[in-house]
Each structure stands twice: as structure tokens, then as C-alpha cells.
């Protein structure tokens, strides 16, 4: 099959469009769409400091690469990585993150659980002294989001860009639907979370309309250093099942993922109208934003007999 644009050999087919692309033309399409998403959703304003969450995986490395390509002249871009202390996984991904930041000449800050909290993620079950299995993704996710927000604030970032792609977004829509979590369901999109809260650095998702497969191909053909390693603690069974279900639908009915996202975006005005927003207040312990009395990070730290207030990045 030939590329629909230039007649070279195609390496990727967008069945829902009835078009195929060579590597170069696919790259052009991906970059164009990212710029369109940023423009239409006002994700990046000229002069803003943009922090980029850089794990070293394909999504975050590709995001840094594209943001550097198009915004490094108008914006300061700083990469932030989190080292959770996961043996046999994070070292490899961090090496790729360091390599890319170095090649692009981007300031790169690495924050580790060990330095900030005094413990690695791997040590938590031992500290808890419990034999039952812990939910790794809950512990890791809460602490990572906490550090990312703190780190972005510490470098005075105006926005925190993350590599969430269209597949992540559609999975999020379904998972919150399955869990009946209307509040989180409402908080998806290109500018997720609580818009306008000074306690949160606004997260932005420039890839929320880009398919995961297109990002992987983009990274491969553009020679971006990334790690395809899987976290040994990864146990988000519901996410995996949901992803498989959506991929089956996408194969049978090409364009399904876009249709789901489009439907969600059409729902958005109605969701805002029903006022299901939670009251955001300050955690009574550490002052971070939360909808509870104490934030999730403090609640989890309480279980470890550690006090988060002493673990600031400032």
C-alpha cells in the first residue's frame, strides 16, 4: 500500500479515514494534530514555563521531543522525572529520559521518593509490616501526582504537560463509568482536574487526541530514545481489560476511539451544568489541595507513620 500523500511505501493505515501514511507523512500528521489540540484548547500560552512529566516511556519522551521542536523558542521547557525506586524498571526508563533531555539540551530535574519521603516504593510492604498484597498503583500514583504538583510549583511552572494519549483518555472514560465515579469522569479532557485552582499547577494533555499506536510509531521512526519496559508492579487489571475491549472494538469498527472521545466532549457542557464539582480545600496536615480533610498522600503516609509535612520539596 502506498502513502496517500506522497506515494512512498505506507507503514501505517488510518482505516477510519481510508488513508495510509509513510513514516514522514505520519509524523507530519501527528505534529499537526498536537499543535491543533494545543491551539484549540489554549494549552500553552507564549512565555509560559512548561514542566513536562518525563518518565522515559514513549509517550512522555515523544511529548518532550515535539514540545521542544515547536515551543522551545517561545517557552521555557523543563523536564521533571520521578524516581519511585522500582528495582529493575525505573533505572532503565530514567536513562532514556536523561539521554533525551541531554540531546535536546533541556533542563531535567529528577525527584526521588527516597530523597523526599525517605523510602523507595519497593520498601512500602516491609514498612507496613503486612503480609497482604498492597495496591502498588494506588500508592505510587498518589505519591507521584503529589511530587509532580509540588515539583512543578517549585520551578514556578505555569503548566504541567503529561503524555496521556487518546487511548488513556478513552480507557479513563470507561473506567470511571464502570466505577460510577461521576466526579472523576467529569475531570477528564485536555485540561484535567480543577481548572483555576492556585493549589494545582494546571495539567495539560497535548496528546489527548493522538492514538497510542501513532505515538509509538512516531517515536520509532524519529529515533527518540524511549523505554518500552513494563513496571513489575503493574496490576491495573481493569485498565488492561478495558484497553483490550476497546482495541477489539477499534479493530472491528475503525474510528471507535475517536467516536467515544467525541461523545465525551459533547457531554462536557451538560456535566458542567449539573454542578457535580467537589469542594476543594487544603489538607489539614500539609496544605495540599484535596476534597477530603486530609489528602490521600497524607492518609497513606499516616499508615507508614511518616509525616508528609516534613517532606516538602521546597
Amino acid at each position, binding site marked *: *500500500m502506498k502513502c496517500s500523500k506522497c506515494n512512498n511505501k505506507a*507503514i*501505517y493505515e488510518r482505516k477510519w479515514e481510508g488513508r495510509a501514511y509513510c513514516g514522514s507523512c505520519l509524523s507530519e500528521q501527528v505534529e499537526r494534530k498536537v499543535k491543533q489540540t494545543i491551539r484549540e484548547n489554549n494549552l500553552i500560552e507564549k512565555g509560559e514555563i512548561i514542566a513536562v512529566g518525563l518518565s522515559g*516511556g514513549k509517550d512522555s519522551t515523544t511529548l518532550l521531543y515535539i514540545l521542544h521542536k515547536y515551543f522551545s523558542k517561545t517557552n521555557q521547557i523543563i523536564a521533571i522525572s520521578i524516581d519511585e525506586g522500582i528495582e529493575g524498571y525505573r533505572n532503565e526508563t530514567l536513562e532514556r529520559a536523561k539521554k533525551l533531555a541531554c540531546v535536546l539540551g533541556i533542563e531535567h530535574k529528577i525527584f526521588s521518593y527516597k530523597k523526599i519521603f525517605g523510602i523507595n516504593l519497593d520498601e512500602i510492604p516491609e514498612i507496613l509490616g503486612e503480609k497482604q498484597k498492597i495496591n502498588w498503583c494506588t500508592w505510587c500514583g498518589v505519591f507521584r501526582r503529589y511530587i509532580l504538583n509540588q515539583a512543578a510549583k517549585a520551578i514556578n511552572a505555569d503548566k504541567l504537560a503529561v503524555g496521556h494519549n487518546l487511548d488513556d483518555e478513552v480507557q479513563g472514560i470507561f473506567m470511571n463509568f464502570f466505577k460510577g465515579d461521576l466526579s472523576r469522569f467529569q475531570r477528564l479532557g485536555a485540561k484535567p482536574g480543577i481548572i483555576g485552582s492556585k493549589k494545582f499547577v494546571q495539567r495539560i494533555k497535548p496528546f489527548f487526541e493522538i492514538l497510542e499506536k501513532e505515538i*509509538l510509531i512516531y517515536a520509532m521512526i524519529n529515533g527518540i530514545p524511549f523505554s*518500552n519496559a513494563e513496571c513489575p508492579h503493574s496490576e491495573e487489571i481493569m485498565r488492561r481489560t478495558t484497553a*483490550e475491549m476497546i*482495541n*477489539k472494538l477499534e*479493530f472491528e469498527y475503525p474510528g471507535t476511539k475517536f467516536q467515544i472521545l467525541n461523545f465525551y466532549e459533547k457531554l462536557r457542557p451538560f456535566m458542567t451544568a449539573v454542578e457535580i464539582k467537589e469542594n476543594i480545600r487544603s489538607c489539614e496536615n500539609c496544605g495540599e489541595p484535596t476534597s477530603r480533610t486530609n489528602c490521600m498522600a497524607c492518609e497513606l503516609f499516616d499508615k507508614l507513620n511518616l509525616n508528609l509535612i516534613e517532606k516538602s520539596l521546597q
Partner: protein
Amino acid sequence: MQININGKEILLKEGSTVLDALKSINANPESVIVKRKDEILLEGDVLNDGDELELIKVISGG
């Protein structure tokens, strides 16, 4: 004909495509990228006897 996918030998009919190969191992084309040496293949690309394919999972990370 015989092809190799990520180190495993698979028997397919002559003229089989990438999609046929993926179906034979119950892999969804949406979830993987198929490479033959440095070339990324499409579902409809025809395979040859002795081809060595590399399957790269699209979903990765944590």
C-alpha cells in the same frame, strides 16, 4: 511456509499476510506493531517463507 514471530516458529499458508499471522497467534493488530528487520509492516503486507517478525506491544509502562 514457516515464519518466526518473536522467536517462535509459526506455520502459515503460502501468500499469508501480516493479519493472518497475527490471527494465528490471537494477537489484535490494534495492540501491536509488526516489524520485519527495520521495516514496519501493514496488516495487508504479504509474508515470505523464512520471514522473521518482531512484535512490539503498543501498551507499555506502568
